[in-house]
């Protein structure tokens, strides 16, 4: 019982500290744009061939000149990326959205909302697998 009390109190303190962090303004989110994608591609030793950005600027899918696929997701004020061969990625086009899934559970499926029809190279990637 005392263990449960300690855990309950700990959870309450966590909520309090996270609220303090939010009140202090630690809520800034990163944004993706083409320049950032170019930089991310360069860090993989490649160049950007084509890219689609989510309407919110928080997700992106790109094809690199190496033929590989780069997926990027904003993680609060940081960015997480995955670069993989096209056959290691499952891409599903659904209306004006693209769903990109990897086997890695540390990078859940990424949804890129386009606001328009998916370009041909994305449809090619969908068909490639």
């Amino acid at each position, binding site marked *: 019982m005392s263990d449960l009390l300690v*855990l309950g109190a700990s959870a309450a303190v966590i909520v309090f500290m996270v609220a303090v962090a939010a009140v202090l303004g630690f809520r800034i989110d990163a944004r993706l744009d083409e320049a950032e994608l170019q930089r991310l591609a360069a860090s993989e030793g490649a160049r950007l061939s084509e890219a689609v950005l989510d309407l919110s600027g928080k997700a992106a899918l790109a094809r690199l000149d190496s033929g590989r696929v780069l997926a990027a997701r904003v993680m609060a004020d940081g960015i997480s990326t995955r670069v993989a061969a096209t056959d290691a990625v499952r891409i599903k086009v659904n209306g004006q959205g693209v769903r990109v899934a990897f086997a890695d559970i540390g990078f859940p499926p990424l949804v890129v909302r386009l606001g328009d029809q998916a370009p041909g190279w994305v449809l090619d990637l969908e068909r490639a697998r």
Partner: protein
Amino acid sequence: MNEPIAAPFEIPPIITYAVPGFVLLILIEMIYVRVTHKGRYQFADSAVSLSMGLGNQVAGLLFGGLVVASYFWVSQHRVFDLGWTWPVLVACFFAEDLAYYWFHRVAHERRWFWASHVIHHTSQHYNLTTALRQTWTGALGFSFIFWLPLVYIGFPPEMVLMFQAISLVYQFWIHTEAIDRMGPLEWVLNTPSHHRVHHAINPRYLDANYAGVLIIWDRLFGTFVPEDRTDQIKYGIISQLGTFNPFRVAFHEWAGILRDVRSAKSFREVLGFIFGPPGWSPDGSRKTSASIKAAWARQQAASVPAE
């Protein structure tokens, strides 16, 4: 039966007693960062770190008995009867810190142990909440085996557990960007500067500064790397996590091991995926610390003009 020598005093719950201090220091650091902009916080990141800390406590309640039982069982077969004397306490402090160094080094160099330890490195931030981002699977992953030689030699299990707790409490305050270098203390102690290097993913800093309390072990075993102010530190892991879900954070590397083992084509590959360095693959196509550092070294050498 050779019962362990009992502690001559009641050992307080050191970590529980330290928690109010942790909370206070985190709040102070948040305000300091807000005012000075020295350091970074993000509330979602802190929420995950603190949730992982809470999960670690739950895991301790569920599986901590396995660790304690193992210590007491091994202690029954100890070589020497080292009692609770001052010289033994001093020796145990050093021995525990040395055991921590080797645990920590192997936890970075072998994927089985990395699967538990990686959780502590998954934040892209480095602040006091990062210190509390702890594993849920350490006991189940047998991380405690690195301390068993101590109780086998004859250090009382409660003494070893006490110094483990003290080490953990010590390591809390070094997770900060708010403190620069600390003069002569940098020679002997693990400091915020040394530990920033440990959490960095810049190639030059990979697999360095494994110390718990004393940095002397890194200096002794050749894994010490000083912080270079000209190279801005990037924190996290090579493949940064794309989730704030604590369960995905806790189990992602174990899931990766399982996935790789299923795809293995030989027993050698199975062993490589489980006990090889993180990033090991049969064809060498994935990145390991060694390959990243080697590529960086080649790049550095190529950028130096020939005389």
